[in-house]
C-alpha cells in the first residue's frame, strides 16, 4: 500500500459514506422504487472520489478544468444524487423527490437538470464511451482534469463497453480511470450464472488497460489505487473494486432481489438503524 489517507480523512469518509447510505435507503423508500443494492455497493467508491480525490466545486459546477464523473451504471442514481447532495450540489431535502413527477432527480441521471451530473446515463454500456470523449477532449485542450467512470459488473455484458475499452487503450487515455463495481450480482441473479463476464481483470488487461484490484469498501485501498492510476502513463486504468451488493444493510447484503426493490417504511426504519450501528 502506497499513499494513505490520514485518520481524520478516514473518519470523515466513514461519516460521509454512512450519510450517503442513509440517504439511499430513505430516497428509495420514499420513491417506492429504485435500485438500492447497487447504490449501496458503490457508496464507498463515490465517497472517496468526491471527498478525498476529485477536483470539483459546487460553486463552479461547469468549470472546464474540473474532474468528471460518469455513472455508467446509471440505475445507481441514488448514490450519485446522495453524494452530490452531501457535496453541496443540491439540498439534502430534495433527495426525497427522487423519481417523483416534476423532480430534477430522474430515475436515472439527467445531466441538464442537476449541476454535478456530468453525463446522462441509464441505458447500460454507454457511459464509458462518453467518458472516453471527455478524456479525449481533455487531451486535445491540454487540460489537467481527470475523468472517472463507474461501471457495473453485469454491465460488462454490453458489447459497447468493449468497443469503448479498445478505444481508450488505442488512444492512450491515461487521464481516464474506470471502476467496476464488482458485486457479483445482477437483476436475474449471480453474474456468473446469468451470462458470465468473468474473468474481469484479465479481460481488461487483454484490452490494453492497466488493471488494479481492490476491496471496494476499503477507503485507503480505493484511494491508493486512484493515486497509482494517476501515475500510469499512456494507458487507461481500470480499478476492479470487489464490493458487496447492499453493503451496510445486513438484510440487503448479497441479495440479488434488492437490486431493484424499494424497502417498506418498516424495513426502512430497520435499515437506517442498521446503518447507525
Amino acid at each position, binding site marked *: 500500500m502506497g499513499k494513505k489517507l490520514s485518520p481524520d480523512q478516514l473518519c470523515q469518509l466513514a461519516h460521509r459514506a454512512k450519510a450517503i447510505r442513509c440517504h439511499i435507503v430513505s430516497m428509495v423508500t420514499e420513491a417506492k422504487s429504485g435500485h438500492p443494492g447497487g447504490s449501496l455497493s458503490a457508496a464507498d467508491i463515490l465517497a472517496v472520489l468526491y471527498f478525498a480525490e476529485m477536483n470539483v466545486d459546487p460553486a463552479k459546477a461547469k468549470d472546464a478544468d474540473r474532474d468528471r464523473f*460518469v455513472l455508467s451504471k446509471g440505475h445507481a442514481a441514488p448514490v450519485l444524487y446522495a453524494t452530490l447532495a452531501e457535496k453541496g450540489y443540491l439540498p439534502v431535502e430534495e433527495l426525497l423527490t427522487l423519481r417523483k413527477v416534476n423532480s430534477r432527480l430522474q430515475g436515472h441521471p439527467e445531466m441538464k437538470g442537476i449541476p454535478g451530473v456530468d453525463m446522462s446515463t441509464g441505458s447500460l454500456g454507454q457511459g464509458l464511451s462518453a467518458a472516453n470523449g*471527455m478524456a479525449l477532449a481533455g487531451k486535445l485542450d491540454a487540460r489537467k482534469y481527470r475523468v472517472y467512470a463507474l461501471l457495473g459488473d453485469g454491465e460488462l455484458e454490453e458489447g459497447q463497453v468493449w468497443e469503448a475499452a*479498445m478505444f481508450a487503450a488505442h488512444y492512450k487515455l491515461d487521464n481516464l480511470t474506470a471502476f467496476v463495481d464488482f458485486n457479483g450480482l445482477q437483476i436475474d441473479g449471480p453474474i456468473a450464472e446469468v451470462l458470465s463476464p468473468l474473468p474481469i481483470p484479465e479481460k481488461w488487461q487483454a484490452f490494453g488497460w492497466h488493471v488494479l484490484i481492490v476491496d471496494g469498501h476499503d477507503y485507503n485501498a480505493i484511494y491508493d489505487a486512484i493515486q497509482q492510476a494517476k501515475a500510469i502513463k499512456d494507458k487507461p486504468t481500470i480499478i476492479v473494486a470487489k464490493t458487496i451488493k447492499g453493503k451496510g444493510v445486513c438484510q440487503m447484503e448479497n441479495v440479488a432481489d434488492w437490486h431493484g426493490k424499494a424497502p417498506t417504511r418498516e424495513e426502512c426504519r430497520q435499515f437506517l438503524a442498521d446503518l447507525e450501528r
Partner: protein
Amino acid sequence: MADLATREAYGIALKALGDRNKDVVVLDADLSKSTKTNVFAKAHADRFFNVGIAEQNLMGVAAGLAAAGKIPFVSTFAMFATGRAFEQIRNSICYPRLNVKIAATHAGLTVGEDGASHQSIEDIAIMRVLPNMTVIVPADATETKQVVDFAAGYDGPVYIRLGRAAVPDLFGEAYQFRLGKAIQLIDGSDVTIIACGVMAAPARHAAEKLAAQGVSARVLNMASIKPIDAAAIMDAARDTGALVTCEEHSIIGGLGSAVAEVLAENMPVPLERVGIMDTFGESGTPGELLKKYNLTEEAIVAAAKKVVGRKQA
C-alpha cells in the same frame, strides 16, 4: 458546376470548417475514404479520430466530446449511424441535447451495388422521431456546404443525410440555407411538388415536363425535414390545392409523412407520395435502382397528374 455527390461536398466543406474552427473534431468508423472525412483527416490529423468498426462507441465518444465543449462531426454510412447506434443517439446525444453533428453518407438506394444491407431507407423516420434532433437532407453540393456551416454554428444535435451518387448543381453560390425554410425552385398554381436530397433535381425536371403538358407545378426543396416549413406547405395547399412529395426513403415516416402530418392537421388537400414503397432495395447501379423503384421524374409526373385529378374529383 459539375455534378458532385453530397458526400464529396461534405468532405470539402468539413475541411474548410476545420480550418476556421479549432473546436471541430471529426470521428469516423473505418469508412473515412467513403464518407470523405479523410479530406479533413489529411488537413487536421490531430483532430480526426478513427474509432474503428464500432458505431455505438462512435456516438458515445462524440457525446463526451460535446459535453466537454467540442463540436464533433461523426460520419459513417447512414445505415450504421442511425441503425446500429440508434439508442446511443437517443440516450447519449438527444436526451441530454449534446452538440453532436451526425453527417451520415450512403443514404438511400443510390448506395447501389452494395445492396439492401447498406441502403438506409428509414433513417429520416428514425431520426425525425427523436426529441431535440434536427434533420436536414441537402440536395446538392452548395446546399451541403451551407448545411455543414449551419450545423457547426447551431447548438444541439443535427442529423445530415448525405448521398454516395453524384447530383447536379441546383443552387447558385448566393444560396443561403435557413433552418425550417423551404426553397422554391419553380412557382406554379396547379400542384406543388416537395422534394429533398437526390429527388430535388428530378422534381424540377418533372415540373418542366408537366408545364409542357399544361400543368403548372410549384417545386419546393425541403432540406429541413425537422423542423419542417409548415407555412410553405400550407401556402402550397392554399395556392395549388394538391401536393406530391418525393424522397429517396421509405414512404413511411420520411418527408412524405412529415408533409402529410402538416396537411392533415391544418389544411387537408390531396397528397401523393413518391418514395420507396415499404420494401427493401437490392444491388444495381444507382440509376437502375432509382428507375426500378420508381424514384424518377416520370413517377413524379404521374403522381402529379393523379393528385391533380383527385383535386378536381
